[in-house]
């Protein structure tokens, strides 16, 4: 079931006017920020479908920019997000795309700074709920409703076992786990939803594994 809590239905508390186009957009932006791990210096945002057609009226642009600056859905600074980003020196570009996507409310965010870049695709499925469906070219399904660990690793035998052994050592229970790859035998992305928030110590142990090249976490 996509919706698990009554507060997905009665909620979120948010700045108007649209739960999917404003609150959902803010959440996609915030997820991008969290996955990137720091405030980016620049962001290119691509809107598809209903997002592309109506973002001006819904404040989808300011909401997603606000999210990238770590604002919550009910943060009134969302209204001034473009101005605030400019003052911070963050370069933001918005593009409307004509391509058809599977979900009508789709946004692609490409962001980065001098140390790195990241690209993700998020969809807003209604009532403020979102899913991240692509990260750096890997398909995934991430809702942000549970703490999660994302591990980029070599696509070879033993990688999953090595990661799950570290989790077991830390008594971390896995709620859901996905492995996705772009090409066989190259790099793969493991998405692991867990029950409790993730300690830094566990992350550094995962990073030290020979098969692993990158580790990111999402907090609840």
């Amino acid at each position, binding site marked *: 079931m996509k919706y698990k809590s009554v507060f997905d*239905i009665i909620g979120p508390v948010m700045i108007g*006017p649209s739960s999917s186009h404003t609150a959902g957009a803010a959440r996609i932006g915030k997820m991008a920020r969290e996955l990137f791990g720091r405030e980016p210096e620049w962001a290119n945002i691509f809107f598809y479908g209903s997002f592309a057609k109506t973002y001006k009226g819904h404040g989808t642009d300011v909401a997603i920019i606000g999210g990238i600056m770590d604002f919550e859905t009910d943060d009134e600074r969302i209204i001034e997000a473009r101005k605030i980003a400019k003052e911070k020196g963050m370069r933001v570009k918005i593009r409307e795309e004509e391509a058809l996507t599977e979900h*009508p409310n789709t946004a692609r965010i490409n962001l980065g700074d001098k140390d790195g870049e990241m690209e993700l695709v998020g969809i807003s499925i209604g009532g403020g709920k979102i899913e991240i469906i692509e990260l750096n070219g890997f398909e995934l399904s991430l809702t942000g409703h549970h703490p999660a660990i994302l591990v980029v690793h070599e696509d070879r035998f033993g990688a999953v076992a090595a990661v799950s052994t570290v989790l077991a050592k830390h008594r971390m229970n896995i709620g859901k786990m996905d492995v996705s790859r772009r090409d066989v035998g190259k790099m793969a992305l493991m998405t692991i939803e867990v029950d409790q928030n993730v300690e830094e110590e566990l992350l550094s142990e995962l990073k030290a594994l020979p098969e692993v090249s990158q580790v990111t976490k999402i907090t609840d």
Partner: protein
Amino acid sequence: MFRNVAELVELAETNNKKISDIMIEQEMKVRNKTREEVLETMERNLVVMEEAVERGLQGVKSHSGLTGGDAVLIQKYIATGKSLSGDLLMDAVSKAVATNEVNAAMGTICATPTAGSAGVVPGTLFAVQNKLNPTREEKLRFLFTSGAFGFVVANNASISGAAGGCQAEVGSAAGMAAAAIVEMAGGTPSQCAEAMAITLKNMLGLVCDPVAGLVEVPCVKRNAMGAANAVVAADMSLAGVTSRIPCDEVIDAMYKIGQTMPVALRETAQGGLAATPTGRELEAKIFGFSLNKES
């Protein structure tokens, strides 16, 4: 965990409980929280709803200038004592409008189940409370009951206008509100489901065609009518009227109608009222250009 309305009603009736009890208990289980914690979170949402209605009743104006001030007009009209449809109904309408006018003005609201449909549930709650005199906890229960029915719709159909049209947003909200009114008025869980079914049946096919893509025209007035629909359907259900089509099948019909609805009528500002000459004119005035890519 209930997956549909039939299971929800059965869970409530076999355990001699209310719909709101079932929702509260499920939330405690899913989130691993105490009853107090769950009620406390809902209390915060209720306070946001109260503040939004209050602000709307004082009069707001959206940035585009398309909406605002109608809630004030309706309240003044009620005060003259000349209302034909009755004070309670018009009070619900004005409070639904008030909330959505605040939403359109980029104010703070609580989505129920979405922002575009955020007026119906609080609008009806704050109107029927004057007649039913609920306790604070009963007001919270109203929101849990609404949430229980919305939960089923969101999981089995859709609550997104872009995916399912306005029937999925204001339609769902109105059905949720009708069910919650019935519980607050002392109706049975089955009667809650009947009220939801009767309401949603009358919202089927409603398209999402906002002028200029803004959640203003016709959204604010659709919330007004969603609230009216909810109050009337609740009364019908409490009178003993039942729906010939079971609630779950109505929800399923809504889902299928949404899937076959043209994209132009699903929150793209390309069809319906958005594509009328006046709709296009307003759009051009607001943005300085038209969103109509075809022309």
